């Protein structure tokens, strides 16, 4: 189904954002949602980086810094008697004198979310591909080679790996048994496709409370209080080959009311996507209860429909919430 402007109120507010690259905006939304639990999270398009602690632990002489821009210069200028470490290739140290060892830590946090933290001091401002089961998205390391991101776990034995530009790979895993309390579905794609999941929870209509999507993503905290589900947007950099994912989580273990959550996927017809094929994948619960992945090719409508949305109601099956 092709529709003109879809949402009575929400759409006018967000139409401009949608046409100018909404992924960056979602980075803000994502970061601000975690801001309360995670004071270190950075509200930028770049993945949040834990700065102060790491540096003081590793290089005792460094003071905590809020801003990392020109870090090396400033370190040099503020420290008396400081002599920058001599970097030679056989020492295997970063420009800041940090060991080049790449580490990946996966830590469980509330709501069956996982905090994934990559430290790759010799890979600053580099794109990395993050994998969790079949979920895949691109991120970029900070100026000290860190990435920190919250990922909804898709299975109890949750394994993660990160592939760096040079092809090297690090892995981590964590047990998240709370995953059984949540229903999760996802779509993922490469490049500037502008796909978004829309969830209408237990009879809600578009634009109403209970209509959850990237521009009204809701929070993990609300889900923990059984107030409804939330959207997580992953993939925080825009370039033609960048991978993005959107995950919708519904706290079916918390919400006691049975009912149906309608799920649809929308793709905006833009000058970049019109008359083209969008490659994407859908991740949803299969017959055996495990998340299965299916490849999708969306044939986008012709370019005289730019600004319309291709609305697909059957890519993701509606969630049927049984009485507990």
């Amino acid at each position, binding site marked *: 189904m092709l529709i003109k402007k879809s949402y009575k109120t929400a759409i006018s507010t967000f139409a401009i954002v949608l046409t100018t690259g909404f992924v960056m905006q979602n980075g803000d939304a994502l970061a601000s949602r975690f801001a309360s639990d995670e004071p270190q999270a950075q509200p930028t398009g770049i993945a949040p980086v834990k700065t102060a602690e790491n540096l003081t632990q590793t290089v005792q002489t460094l003071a905590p810094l809020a801003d990392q821009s020109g870090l090396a210069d400033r370190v040099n200028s503020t420290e008396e008697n400081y002599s920058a470490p001599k970097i030679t290739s056989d020492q295997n140290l970063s420009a800041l004198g940090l060991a080049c060892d790449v580490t990946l830590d996966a830590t469980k946090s509330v709501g069956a979310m996982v905090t994934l933290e990559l430290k790759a001091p010799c890979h600053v401002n580099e794109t990395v591909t993050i994998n969790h089961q079949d979920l895949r998205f691109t991120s970029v390391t900070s100026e000290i080679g860190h990435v920190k991101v919250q990922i909804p776990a898709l299975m109890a034995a949750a394994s993660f790996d990160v592939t760096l530009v040079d092809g090297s790979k690090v892995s981590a895993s964590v047990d998240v048994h709370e995953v059984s309390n949540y229903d999760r579905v996802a779509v993922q794609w490469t490049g500037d496709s502008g796909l978004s999941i829309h969830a209408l929870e237990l009879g809600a209509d578009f634009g109403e409370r209970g209509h959850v999507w990237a521009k009204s993503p809701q929070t993990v905290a609300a889900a923990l209080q059984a107030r409804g589900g939330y959207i997580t947007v992953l993939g925080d950099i825009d370039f033609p080959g960048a991978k993005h994912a959107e995950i919708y989580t519904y706290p079916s273990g918390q919400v006691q009311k049975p009912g149906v959550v309608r799920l649809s996927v929308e793709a905006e017809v833009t000058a970049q996507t019109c008359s083209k*094929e969008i490659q994407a994948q859908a991740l949803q619960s299969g017959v055996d209860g495990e998340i*299965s992945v299916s490849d999708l090719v969306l044939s986008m409508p012709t370019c005289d429909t730019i600004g319309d949305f291709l609305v697909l109601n059957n890519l993701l099956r509606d969630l049927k919430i049984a009485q507990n």
Partner: protein
Amino acid sequence: MKTLRAAVLAALFTIGMLAPALGQDVTLTSRDGTVSVSGTLLSFDGEFFRLDSTYGVLTLDGTGVTCAGIGCPNLESYVAEFSIVGARSMGVVLLPTLVEMFAEQSGMRVKQIVQDDANYTYVLRLAETGKDVARIAFRLSNTDGGIAEMLNGEADMVLATREITASEAKTAYKSGFGDMKRAARSRIVGLDGLVPVVAQSNPVEMISLENLARIFAGDITNWQDIGGPDAPIFLHHLPVDTGLAQRFETNVMRSENRNLAASVKRHATAVEVVDAVARDPFSIGITRFSEVGNAKMLALRGSCGMAFMATRRALKTEDYPLATPLLLYTPARRLPKAAREFLMFLRSPAAQRAVRHVGFVDQEVTKIGIEDQGKRFANAIAAAGDEVKLADLQSMIDTLRPASRLTVTFRFNAGSSSLDAQSRANVVLLSRLLEAGIFDGRELMFVGFSDGDGPATGNRTISKRRAKAVRAAVKLAATTMKPERVKLSTKAFGEALPMACDDTEWGRQVNRRVEVWVK
């Protein structure tokens, strides 16, 4: 080199000249090189060559021959192509899930190429080699549209939420698509049912079919008249021309001699019906069991008080009066191997699991213990009296108490002694279980029941005759069954165990049945 005799090849061939002739010359030679035949290649389905030779049209198994000549297909790059058309209610969730499950079981990955919600193509490719095996084109409309596409020669599989009509079958036969009424031309993919729904906040819990017809005819317009609040009733219905809507109009409206009111709001899908109803406490809608959404199902009540809620079990047993089998028709022609394998898969336990997973009713045969049938026996006691004596009930209980009822039940078309579509499929289902030896060492009782019209003794005779007829049909279908391993008996209790009230035609139809009990 010997040339093959036409008679030998005739045994291998099938008729069905529907594919366009490729018009290129090929020579097919047996693997040992001793025999060969030349001609014009008509088609290749990945497994069989169809060849127009000097012996006539021949179909040859591709595994037994090598092909030489400009017309030879590239065996490596062959991709089976077939189409699935028809009922959208089956095509949007149920069939895609089955295709995905089939692919997974066959070591294949799927890619879905989507134009919109009703038009998409599944590409199945081997997970190991990445080679494409099949392309399945979905074009969804409704049952009418699907059958029309088949009659135009444009469909390989038709999804239907109603049985093909006599006139459609006649046209199909004349056009060379075979006898669509034959068992080989159709199969049941899953079961569904028509259900009335209201909003969760509406206090009404049940409704009679008579009142349902009056409401949708516009003769009852206020909830007050059926035990609800003093408020107008708003009507929501499935799209016009869909098999399910037609079923409602035939089985509910027409059997009450009523027509749909002009105020009925038609929606494009069942999802839209239930979403509209769920948001409005004064609305009532018609939907399918598999799509109730956030609305509330109403039970159907007969005038004598017996009520039916649509449940998986009541739809399997057809004890619920508006059960609908979900059918898949195939025209009489050779389908590509991948398509035939998919049809085989539909009968498997894995397919039944997939059907259940997406909210439809599967056909797995299960047992119902006598302890779960208290309501039925309470009905029997309440209805007993002049015609059915206490001794009759006691004799029935003595027979049934040591046994369990199977969900397989046989019912008959209205005003006829022929089995309905779901029951015909049940003949095949039960015969397969017998062949597999599931009931070896047990006794299977075919228990006939009747409606309460006419004298009780006559009803017992009729129900006995029906039980024997069903047993005969099952025996005939179970060709490889070992008769010494399972006892097949018949019993008959006439009108002693009514399921529904006898004062309506639908109630009598529910009561006329042959149940199967195992002990």
